[in-house]
């Protein structure tokens, strides 16, 4: 389990802790395929865990999914095809990087939105600031200035 901070707070909800994720016997002989398997696993969620990828998780489900991914890789499937297969089976929930679509528009859009809105806000504030402190003097100030200059 990697939720250290969480365990601190949600002690009751803890399951017994097995040690770690990928097991030696799961590893593929072909290093290129194995590297692809690892990269792909890091993007897939272990659905019974909290925000853990199947690469990190110790849950039996994660083990089954890792083997499944590797079986598909051995069968020659592309990464995209495997992802598609898993989404069809388990839904978007399995992707740690949510797909870009209507429901996630706000999620993906937030950084740009805040940056944009903030930028506009700053520009307006700056303009207001320079207008409010404009260098035009009113008549009283003009008179005082004239008086000062005469001295």
């Amino acid at each position, binding site marked *: *389990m*990697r*939720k*250290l*901070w*969480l*365990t*601190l*707070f*949600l*002690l009751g*909800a*803890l399951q*017994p*802790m*097995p*040690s*770690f*994720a*990928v*097991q*030696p*016997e799961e*590893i593929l002989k072909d290093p290129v395929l194995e590297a692809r398997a690892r990269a792909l696993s*890091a*993007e897939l*969620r272990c659905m019974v865990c*909290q*925000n*853990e*990828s199947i690469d*990190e998780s110790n849950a039996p489900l994660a083990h089954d999914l890792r083997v499944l991914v590797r079986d598909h890789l051995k069968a020659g499937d592309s990464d995209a095809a495997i992802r598609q297969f898993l989404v069809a089976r388990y*839904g*978007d*929930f*399995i*992707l*740690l*990087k*949510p797909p870009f679509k209507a*429901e*996630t528009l*706000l*999620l*993906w859009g*937030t*950084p740009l939105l*805040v*940056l944009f809105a*903030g*930028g506009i806000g*700053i520009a307006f504030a*700056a303009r*207001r*600031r*320079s207008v*409010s*402190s404009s260098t035009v003097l009113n008549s009283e100030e003009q008179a005082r200035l004239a008086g000062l200059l005469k001295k």
Partner: protein
Amino acid sequence: MIVETGHYALVLALALALVNSIVPVWGARRQDLSLMAVAPAAALMTFLLIGYAFFALTYAHVVSDFSVLNVVENSHSAKPLVYKISGVWGNHEGSMLLWVLILAIFGAAVALFSRGMPDDLRANVLAVQSWIGAAFLLFILLTSNPFARLAVPPAEGQDLNPLLQDPGLAIHPPLLYLGYVGLSITFSFAAAALISGRIDAVWARYVRPWTLIAWIFLTLGIAMGSYWAYYTLGWGGFWFWDPVENASLMPWLAATALLHCAAVMEKREALRIWTIFLAILAFSLSLIGTFLVRSGVLTSVHAFATDPQRGVFILVILIAFIGGSLALFALRAGELKQGGIFAPVSREGALVLNNLLLTTACATVFVGTLYPLALEAITGEKISVGAPFFNATFIPLFLPLFIAMPAGQMLAWKRGDLLGAAQRLVIALACGLVAALIFAAWQGAPWVSYCLAGLAVYVVVGSFTDVATRVFGRGASLSEAFRNAIGMPRSAWGTAFAHAGLAVTLLGLAATGWGVDRVLTVKPGETVNLGPYEVSVTGLVQKQGPNYNALVTPAVIRSGGVEVARIEPANRFYPSRKMSRAEAGIATLGFGQLYMSISGTTPDGGIDARLYWKPLVTLIWIGALVMGFGGALSLSDRRLRIGVARRARVSPVPNAQPAE
């Protein structure tokens, strides 16, 4: 008996906090000094009472009083003493008690160390602090009583979760809470300023040390937690974009932004509205973090719905404080006058850019953390937002921040010269470029790693460029330079160190790309090649600990046949909880670490092991220490100490140092 007196002390503390919530505010309105004088005394007394309650719970844990439910659930008579003590806050009730204790410590600190402050400001600050205290004391007493007794005490306790039986638990939560809860002071200052309607540079000067203290502890607490996760979890990860981690990162981002814009307010009286808003935001995010981790809403929306008592209580506190302060803010913000003016290219402008990027980063983390919860609650659709999302959104926001950081330091207040700043950064840029090339030649791919490493070196050099030119400027001799260095305002050194520290962390993060990891089954006597090292497993031993038994595989690390270190990765089993925990074997070699953890044995005598070589990995946490050091330097700056402003008013110092 002691346990009951602890409970009683907590009830008294609540009563006192309620008194202190009202009397000082009333006194401040009527300008009645005797009513306002209640605040510091009551704050100190509240601290003593909560301190006593905390002591009582600690006592019950230390003597293993198994008639107390909290002790039964989290302790064991055979547990080492240090974990009996740290176990006090290793559970919900105890950690909430620590939360209010730290809140009371900060209240008492304000009462003690702010004699120079205007009376009404201090009275209002302590009153707001008491509102928070009263709300959380009520929460503890009504929903999470740590002193509950059992009618039939068991003979033995259930022990503490093995993951928490670690020095990390002794240090990490107190540090993190000092940061988290420390932001309550800036919040109280903001609320007090809004109540009294006086928001000026003097206010910013009083808040600054408190923000700095909270920021330092938050920085160290997050780093400590990350290192703890790294060495206990057994697979070498150190940051997971987990909601609970995000809950501490958000206040850190807000507090960092606050530190920077408070500097503008202090020096130039500009950005006042924004500073107050950030002060409210930073603590609000702390409260949201507390809600997230305490309510169980993270496990699932449904778990929250089935046992909502605690969650709803904190949610009410959250809404009351955030809503109340924002309403007050909306009422008062319009009255604030414009502060000093500045050109877009200026120190102020750079700090505005810093705030824009940090706030956007904070909003990104916020939405990423809460979006799945909100979407599920509204449409029922489940999505996951994990590390790949944050890597794709958060990192692009931080890159411009790194690029702009040294340049911002170079710009003058009011109106800066971008070209001049760039010219002064030529050396830093050259260093960064050369470093990137060196790293590319030395460690090679991936390109992201050596580019980021170059960026990090540029920021480190750039952070010190301004200080260096001031120290060695105009061909100063060595002794002159030394005198210049001593005479420089410590806050200038602090800025340089804090910025450089962040860059050091970046270098550590960049280096993760050069790591090597292997998952394999080894047999005693076998040797494994790992990066520049050879690791030989020498045996497989059983060991007996106080409340666990362990499987240990001693290993020798050699470099070119020469022994450089020995490690003993182990797997511990705790019978009382029927849980096991990997105890990684870690050897620090230079700034890198060789990391090995074992999970179990195979029937034919092999050991399932995971080995990593992580070059420069320690820089991630060293960088945080450097950041904290920078913060401490800045805090020690004499000009910014609390009360100095007042003394200066009484007797103006003729040779006052020029403002930066």
